[in-house]
């Protein structure tokens, strides 16, 4: 039915099956939209947020998704930026389109959820109009918007590669010209993304009266600024790879060369190792110097349900272990180990974002204050899940109708 739109020489599942899948995703999205509209109409009282937990699931999902979306900027940086110096990085080309789509999905999705997150979404634009230059959130607002625009611009030429669009001469020319200057956007994106990943880290790190979050500074930024940047690039490409692998499993086809995964694993392993060393150093300094100066012991910060196990999980299980696996040739050779390591890597970063936003707020600061617990409601889960479904939808459509993987035809010659 939709043959005309499917790229030449590749096989896709039958249209009805695809339609069912789309229906399923749309259902999830509709559920999320319904919940989101309710929140917009009736207010944030529908959520599990309160005056202790000003931040919750929405922000965790935003921060997590933005960190994982960093695959786009970092892959772009590797390919467009430095592959001419390190030819081995040219391999990235085979997955760069997917990285861009994933990035686009993550950033646009995050922006949508952000609209729900603020109490006065119709005034959201005040962030541009009355910016407070000291606020990390101002930086985040500016950078995310700009980067979402950049990602859109990066996504457009991929869309225009669709058979039908490509047949239209001016669009073909337009798309081609965009491709030519993509390096410029990619590098702009890299710059923007670097900053806002950092400022997201800064969001927590500058809270100088919140001993769980506060980190002393390096230059004008707190340590979390840099940790967030590094952790994002230590997980973004891994996330892209995980998605790619998932698509391979779904489509029962090989979409990229195994060498791509191997390359990503080496890069991610190295960065994750660097990150985890810095994170441990940061944690130690915080636990031994920063927090005690504010009167806190490490044990003050951990209490059920947000116990010490979170710290262990984040640093050891989702940090040291995946880094070791990714750095060892044996680990990389085994698909199971490799993708488990990617998964742990991503999970660790999400845990980090959760801990820095939600657990941080559970910790009472005044000595006579209470430890509070946050339970998100369905009105938070639904839009968050819908956002993931929206990502799956865009990726599915892109995969079906756009030539995302340059090597797909060669790798699956039977078709």
């Amino acid at each position, binding site marked *: 039915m939709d043959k005309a739109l499917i790229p030449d020489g590749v096989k896709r599942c039958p249209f009805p099956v695809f339609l069912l899948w789309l229906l399923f995703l749309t259902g999830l999205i509709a559920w999320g939209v319904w919940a989101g509209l309710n929140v917009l109409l009736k*207010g*944030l*009282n529908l959520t599990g*947020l*309160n*005056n*202790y*937990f*000003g*931040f919750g699931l929405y922000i965790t999902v935003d921060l997590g998704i933005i960190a994982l979306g960093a695959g786009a900027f970092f892959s772009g940086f590797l390919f467009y930026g430095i592959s001419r110096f390190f030819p081995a990085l040219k391999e990235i080309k085979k997955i760069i389109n997917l990285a861009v789509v994933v990035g686009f999905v993550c950033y646009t999705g995050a922006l949508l959820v952000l609209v729900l*997150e*603020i*109490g*006065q*979404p119709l*005034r*959201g634009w*005040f*962030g541009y*109009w*009355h*910016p*407070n230059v*000291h*606020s*990390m*959130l*101002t930086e*985040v*607002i500016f950078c995310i918007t700009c980067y979402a625009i950049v990602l859109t611009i990066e996504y457009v030429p991929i869309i225009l590669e669709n058979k039908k669009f490509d047949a239209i001469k001016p669009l073909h020319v337009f798309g081609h010209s965009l491709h030519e200057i993509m390096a410029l956007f990619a590098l702009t994106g890299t710059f923007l993304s670097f900053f806002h990943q950092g400022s997201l880290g800064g*969001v927590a790190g*500058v*809270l*100088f*009266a*919140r*001993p769980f979050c506060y980190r002393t500074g390096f230059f004008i930024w707190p340590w979390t600024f840099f940790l967030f940047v590094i952790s994002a690039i230590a997980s973004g490409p891994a996330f892209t790879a995980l998605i790619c692998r998932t698509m391979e499993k779904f489509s029962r086809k090989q979409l990229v060369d195994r060498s791509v995964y191997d390359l990503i694993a080496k890069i991610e392993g190295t960065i994750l190792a660097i990150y985890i060393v810095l994170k441990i150093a940061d944690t130690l300094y915080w636990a031994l110097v920063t927090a*005690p*100066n*504010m*009167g*806190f*012991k490490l044990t*003050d910060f951990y209490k059920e349900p947000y116990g010490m196990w979170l710290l262990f999980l984040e640093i050891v299980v989702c940090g040291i272990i995946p880094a070791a696996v990714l750095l060892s040739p044996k680990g990389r050779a085994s698909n199971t180990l490799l993708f488990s390591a990617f998964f742990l890597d991503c999970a660790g970063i999400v845990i980090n974002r959760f801990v820095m936003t939600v657990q941080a*707020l559970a910790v009472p*600061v*005044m*000595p*006579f*204050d209470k430890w*509070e617990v946050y339970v998100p409601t369905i009105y938070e889960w639904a839009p968050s899940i819908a956002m993931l479904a929206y990502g799956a939808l865009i990726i599915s459509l892109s995969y079906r109708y756009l030539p995302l993987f340059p090597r797909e035809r060669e790798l699956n010659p039977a078709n």
Partner: protein
Amino acid sequence: MSEKHSSNTHEEHGKSKVRYGMVIDLDKCTGCMACAVACHQENNVSFRPDETDKTRNIAWMRMYFLENGKEYPEYRFSYLPRPCFHCDSPHHTPCTFVCPVNATQRDERTGIVNMIYPRCIGCRYCMVACPYHARSFNWWDPTWPKPLEEMLNPEVSTRMRGVIEKCTFCHHRLNKARDKARLEGKDPDGVEYTPACVEACPTGAIVFGNLRDPESEVSKLAKSPRAFQISAKLKTYPKVYYLSKEPWIRKLSDKGL
């Protein structure tokens, strides 16, 4: 709490003559909550049929419950009324530092941390930043059952759903006092005025005034050996001081004491 923090004279902020501040004597406070009622009455703070979820309700002046941790009959307790501390940390308060839209700022002429509700986008970053939970979010549309709307004070705008609010040191009363001073040909800077909570307190436990005026009662009390700030180690430099002679209360003023 180290001497260094508690003896902060709020001098580092420009040249203005005033730094409004407050001292609350916990030894005198009987926890009658008249201060909170008066504050919420004066400032049109809304209420709902169920106000028992203290993590969701709006309170500008909120009571905290302090206990000495012992068993009967050694047990003792105290209430601690908590307005916004109008933190005086150099450069910025924890909350104003982070507001992306400048909807909350510290007026450097007075030291008062204010809120511009019509500008607030409700991101709650300031609330997260404030360690004292002085900020409340409007989770619901504020409503008053009829005919209670009649009692609303027009000098203080009612807030809308989705924005943050908090104690303003009754800023509108300062503005009135300044207007009056101007009309009388006096210097409006450094005028004295009385916030609602101070006015209400039957025991005189709350004293308000200019911390920079060495002759004011508030600045003298702030230097009393009984004086302390809450969580002074955070270096937020609260302009609200507490007084108590009880060692166990003083111990609860900061972590790690």
